[in-house]
């Protein structure tokens, strides 16, 4: 067996504890993750040449029916990126589960460039071992081989880990299948009341959990860099306030409820500061940083304009923000120590909501022109803008932690839906909610072991 025992077991075990805790949270508040919060990912524009790959259904050694269909999740993961064209299982002539059973020539005839085989073994009622191997069919050799151990409730996470390893091996880009997204859903009821929910789900939309629920608006979720907390804005007291909620325990802290606007929270890369927008001083919106340990507030902007939507550079030294000090909203940046802000975007009359790519080189913005709003990518070095999307009311861009993809909100038949676009604009997917309006997606960071 050429497999290597991965250190996945520990990460998966932690994932399981987290899952149990979130279940308790749901029970405590009598909130149930609504089935309608689930998302279906459709490829609206695939890569020009998606990589053909065959993920053979895994073998099963255990009592009763197969505990989990790992291959199905891996297939869906790879397909959801628009970069892979998985071979339908029905087209597979053979279904090897061991390297010795692989006949490369037959997979070449099926035009699969890559082949994934594997086995799931039940070691005990709550202990499983998954083994998988990735083959380069063209070269006729093994590219990857791993053994992963997991409890029953970690089998889905195990499939995502396998997807991450395969994706990175083939594309050179770390996979984001084990990450999470947060988003806001709004349900309008027949009696005209509304229900706002803040939802956290796996990146594929599965495993959705409601973490806050209110008849008043919820908005602007922001991940902490350790993926353990979410900051957000709630109007539950008839006034805006910024909260920071710990996902595992459900406990939350109201970190700002000053008079006027308390909005647009954004964690610094070290997690110690929260950049946010306040208007308590004179009714004008300015960007501040709040030290979460000491509560010390520091004002970063002082202009009479609307200054809002702060976002951090990856090194934590610069805060990007939206300001209409020159007329329309444009992107500016200022040192975290304060000083004179510098304008960054010049192309067009409306560039708002900057979000930095993980490498700090690209700024995703909402680009408005001729009454349409699309997602644009501004080069942080020279201000050049590329328009990435084609919608009319696109908003809220957020980079995946691998920088390869931007998730955003758009409209489809009058409903709020989520969508993603590759950072080069070439691959587009739509992430449709089964029911209700969804918006303000924010992609969480890579999980920390």
């Amino acid at each position, binding site marked *: 067996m050429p497999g290597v025992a991965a250190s996945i077991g520990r990460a998966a075990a932690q994932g399981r504890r987290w899952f149990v805790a979130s279940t308790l949270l749901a029970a405590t508040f009598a909130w149930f993750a609504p089935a309608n919060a689930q998302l279906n990912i459709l490829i609206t524009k695939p890569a020009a040449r998606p990589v053909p790959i065959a993920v053979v259904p895994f073998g099963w050694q255990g009592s009763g029916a197969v505990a989990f269909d790992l291959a199905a999740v891996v297939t869906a993961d790879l397909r959801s990126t628009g970069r892979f064209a998985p071979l339908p299982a029905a087209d597979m002539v053979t279904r090897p589960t061991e390297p010795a059973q692989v006949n490369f020539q037959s997979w070449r005839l099926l035009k699969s460039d890559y082949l994934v085989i594997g086995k799931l073994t039940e070691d005990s009622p709550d202990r499983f071992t998954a083994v998988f191997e990735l083959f380069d069919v063209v070269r006729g050799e093994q590219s990857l081989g791993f053994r992963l151990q997991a409890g029953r409730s970690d089998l889905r996470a195990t499939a995502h880990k396998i997807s991450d390893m395969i994706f990175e091996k083939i594309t050179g880009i770390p996979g984001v299948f084990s990450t999470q997204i947060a988003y806001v859903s709004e349900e*309008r009821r027949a009696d005209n009341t509304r229900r706002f929910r803040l939802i956290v789900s796996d990146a594929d939309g599965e495993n959705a959990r409601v973490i806050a629920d209110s008849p008043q*608006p919820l*908005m*602007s979720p922001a991940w902490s860099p350790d993926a353990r907390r979410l900051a957000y804005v709630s*109007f539950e007291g*008839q*006034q*805006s306030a910024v909260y920071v909620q710990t996902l595992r325990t459900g406990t939350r802290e109201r970190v700002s409820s000053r*008079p*006027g*606007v308390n*909005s*647009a929270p954004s964690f610094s890369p070290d997690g110690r500061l929260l950049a946010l*927008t306040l*208007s308590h001083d004179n*009714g*004008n*919106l300015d960007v501040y940083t709040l030290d979460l340990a000491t509560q010390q507030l520091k004002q970063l902007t002082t202009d009479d304009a*609307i200054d*809002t*939507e702060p976002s951090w550079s990856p090194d934590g030294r610069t805060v990007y923000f*939206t300001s*209409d000090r020159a007329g*329309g*909203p444009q992107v500016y940046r200022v040192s975290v120590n304060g000083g004179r802000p510098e304008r960054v975007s010049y192309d067009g009359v*409306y560039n*708002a*909501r900057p979000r930095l790519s993980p490498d700090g080189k690209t700024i995703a913005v*909402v680009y*408005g022109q001729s*009454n349409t*709003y699309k997602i644009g990518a501004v080069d942080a070095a020279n201000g050049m803008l590329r328009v990435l999307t084609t919608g*009319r*009311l696109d*908003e*809220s861009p957020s980079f995946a932690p691998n920088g390869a993809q931007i998730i955003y909100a758009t*409209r489809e038949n*009058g409903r709020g839906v989520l969508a993603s676009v590759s950072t080069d604009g070439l691959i587009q997917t739509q992430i449709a909610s089964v029911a209700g309006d969804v918006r*303000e997606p924010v992609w969480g960071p890579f999980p920390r072991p």
Partner: protein
Amino acid sequence: MKNVLWIVLIAAVFSVTACSKSNTKGATSSAGSTAPTSSGSNTTGSGAGGGISVSSLDADQARIVQTQLVVYFDYDQAEIKPEFNAMLAAHGANLAKNAALTLRLEGNTDERGSREYNIGLGERRAQSVRRVLMLQGAAANQLTTVSYGEERPASTGSTEEAWRLNRRVELVYSR
């Protein structure tokens, strides 16, 4: 919406010409029916002259205060259009004469563009209304602002008409 405004204006003119004798009674009783919290403050404050202030608000203004509670704005603008001057003068006078009254100014925008920038725009609109009301005699401690941005549309849909109705500041009286 234009029709509604016209009806309101006609009604206001009518009330000035026809009901000038009974304006005090009309003002207090209808205030009680449409805005219970503000009538409460009127009556509890009467010992300090609340009754006098209500009677000195002319019938036209009293009617405006009860019926005209929304200021509309142009796209991406926070400037008060001249058509709302009389309305805000009436609310300003009402607040000046009833020190116990408070008014909450809820700023809103249409759905276009970035949500947090729209929170800014809604607040700017609420602040515009606040400034005008203070020029008309309202005290700073009578006025609070909140911006909902695009989060609480008055009209759903992505049409010019829905957008026009959503670019607004709502005036909400309380004790």
